[in-house]
């Protein structure tokens, strides 16, 4: 029995959005008399934290506390249209739509505040703590709740805004493939370290270490969550998962998680990451996207590390113990 170690790298790009059919998303914002700002959408939170980051973007542009922003999403009777949460598009598209809507709502909010404070709207600013104040005279201020009440009961105005972001449809040239199919590119480089048991063919991933560049991070903890979840998912794809283990044969099709095997918590490798921020030209506050790509660089990095460890180039994934042993045997025969 021998255990051999190897290291592999992979560097990838990943595009944001898919507009070969057009790619719009809308957002509507209105202030209630409770001081809340409701952002109506039809975007779906898949567990990645979309509702949280979109509230952050809305709060930032409105200039109000995060706690005052509510996300009301995915009711087709009340939310405006969204293409959906896929293609790493949701934060980019909905975020841009929210900024547009929030700018309109903020303008009305400052106009009403200006009337109440007997000031020029251009001289006002928000403190992000729930107040609007005269620049240079912070004692002349009014709370956003009082602005909302005044707008409704005194001035008959709605503090509201409409936003849409669309990346127009791109036609593909059927001869050359010329197209403009996405908005921006995020990047990652992963270094994986593995240990291979040459007797059993089992692979232990020791570490997955990555550098990401995702434009602006709206919520660094959620970006890290994506990176760590994606690293483990990529490892699972690299070593375990398939519905057709003897593809193209349809035999041995799994029915449950006892047959469709996933790695358990005890197999969690060391996962480390650094995130660079080079804001994109068209994303909300420079956002690119980090939704899909986090499994992409770990897979080839791990497979390259196994190739490096055993001295045979592997060309498929998942790399099961059976395939590792066959590769080692092929080298011995050669």
């Amino acid at each position, binding site marked *: 029995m021998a255990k051999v170690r190897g290291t*592999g*790298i*992979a*560097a*990838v*790009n990943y*595009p944001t959005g*898919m507009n070969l*059919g057009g790619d719009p998303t809308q957002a509507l914002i209105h202030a209630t008399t409770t001081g809340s700002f409701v952002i109506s959408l*039809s*975007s*779906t939170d*898949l*567990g990645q*934290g979309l*509702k*949280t980051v979109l509230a952050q973007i809305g709060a*930032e542009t409105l200039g109000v*506390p995060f706690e005052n922003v509510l996300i009301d999403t*995915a009711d087709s009777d009340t939310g405006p249209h969204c*293409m*959906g949460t*896929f293609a790493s598009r949701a934060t980019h598209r909905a975020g841009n739509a929210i900024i547009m809507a929030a700018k309109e709502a903020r303008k009305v909010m400052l106009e009403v505040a200006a009337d109440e404070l007997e000031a020029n709207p251009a001289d006002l600013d928000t403190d992000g703590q729930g107040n609007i104040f005269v620049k240079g005279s912070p004692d002349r201020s009014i709370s956003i709740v009082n602005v909302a009440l005044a707008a409704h009961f005194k001035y008959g105005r709605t503090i509201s805004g409409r936003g849409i972001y669309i990346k127009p*449809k791109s036609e*593909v040239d059927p001869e*050359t493939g010329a197209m403009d*199919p*996405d908005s*921006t*590119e*995020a990047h990652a*480089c992963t*270094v994986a370290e593995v240990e291979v048991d040459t007797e059993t063919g089992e692979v232990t991933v020791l570490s997955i270490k990555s*550098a990401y560049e995702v434009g602006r991070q709206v*919520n*660094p*903890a*959620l970006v890290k969550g994506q990176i760590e979840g994606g690293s483990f998912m990529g490892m699972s794809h690299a070593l375990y998962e398939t*519905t*057709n*283990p003897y593809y193209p*044969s*349809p035999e041995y*099709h*799994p*029915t449950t998680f006892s*047959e*469709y095997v*996933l790695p358990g918590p005890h197999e969690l490798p060391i996962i480390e990451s650094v995130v*660079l*921020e*080079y804001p994109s*030209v068209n994303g909300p506050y420079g956002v690119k996207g980090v939704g*899909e*790509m986090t*499994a*992409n660089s770990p897979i*080839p990095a791990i497979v390259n590390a196994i190739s490096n460890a055993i001295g045979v*180039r592997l*060309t498929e994934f998942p790399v099961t113990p059976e395939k590792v042993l066959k590769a080692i045997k092929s080298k011995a025969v050669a």
Partner: protein
Amino acid sequence: MTVAEQPLSVVGKSVYRRDGIGHVTGKTIYVDDISFPDMLHLKMVRSPLHHARIKGIDFSEAEKVPGFVRALTYKDVPKNIYTILCLIGVGPDDEPVLAAERVRYKGEQIAAIVAETEEAATEAASRVRLDLEELPAVFDVEEALKPGAPIVTDWGTNYFVYEGHECRRVRFGDVEQGFAQADYIVEECYQTYPTEHAPVETTACVAKPEPGGRYTVYTNTQALFFTLDNTALILQIPFNKLHFVGGTVGGGFGGKVDVIVEPIATLAAMKTGRPVKYKYTRTEEMQVSSTRSAWRMYFKDGVTKDGRIIARKVTSYADSGAYNRHTPYAVTKHAANVAGPYAIPNVWIDAYCVYTNRQPASAMRGFGVTPASFALECQMDKIAQTIGMDPWELRFINAYRNGDIKPHRKVVEDATLIEVMQAAAKLVGHPLPEHLLAMNSWDREAR
């Protein structure tokens, strides 16, 4: 002021996610938590064969099961043949909601059973007798393209037709001239296998008739309006008869962009006048829900002695399974990305969307790009080994820069490949030589 210099207050802060506590304490309401007093349950009668002609369906034993309410077949579906991406002009329609004359994959939906309980629906579905005539099946993408292969589609070819072509093409520069000038030719075939999304929450919906004649559909779709619009088209009802409610999903990964459970559950609600739940079991999620396509990718690269990749020719085959779903689009996205984040002056790509008698593939995290990144990053290591160059060095000297033109004629404007490689090397303590540390993505001469 550039974006990077803007002072920000809450963007960039790790505020706690609001739904986190609900998720980790089991309080979040998912679709399967939704129930109504008179709710019915829907289970599918599925094909036990990979490819077969349907000669008859006998419900007589199923109807005897206590709690059986009714069965639905293709005759009940107003527009039975659909394709999800018809909404953005992709066609032709190819997939039946319920199979009529033919089944093209094992597990394909043939008839729906609606019953008072989940157990009764399951029992009744198991008692439906199918008279099937087995047909020859094809499972390999290259076998499927050979003359004489069993034909999966109704239009007569086992490939998707891209504006008159049998594949999605990218043509950039002169790849044969590039090969002629190369010192090395590096070839390899890469294969990925079908992968299940494996969400914790299986695909599900509840469709409920409302007193005003509308239908409320509680769904875990990733794309609310895609699903609503397709459901209305299949049922041939005005869009505004439908009210879709969603927004909280227990894992999607692309698997919930398909439109499978909502149309038939809504039809069952229309036919029975009662709420209907259709929820995949784990086995259905594994065996009949979409997977990531398997991909076979042939690479041929022309490389100079000093490590420049000057020509790349890729022929890729995506195994779409029996129907379109999202794979025709995935193939185009693959074609735009399979040359990789590298500046290669001559590129030729033929990417095929191929039909087989397998459970349909569809969208999945990394949509056409995950297999591309896998193949091309393994290929980079193979090139490095072949020409005797350090794999970091090979990637650095070929990395694309801002202002480059990608093979699909898009100008690169957000490249940072060099920067993430420098940061990754630093993170793992891998020393890079000075000339690689001096590079950046904005200035090609900085080396």
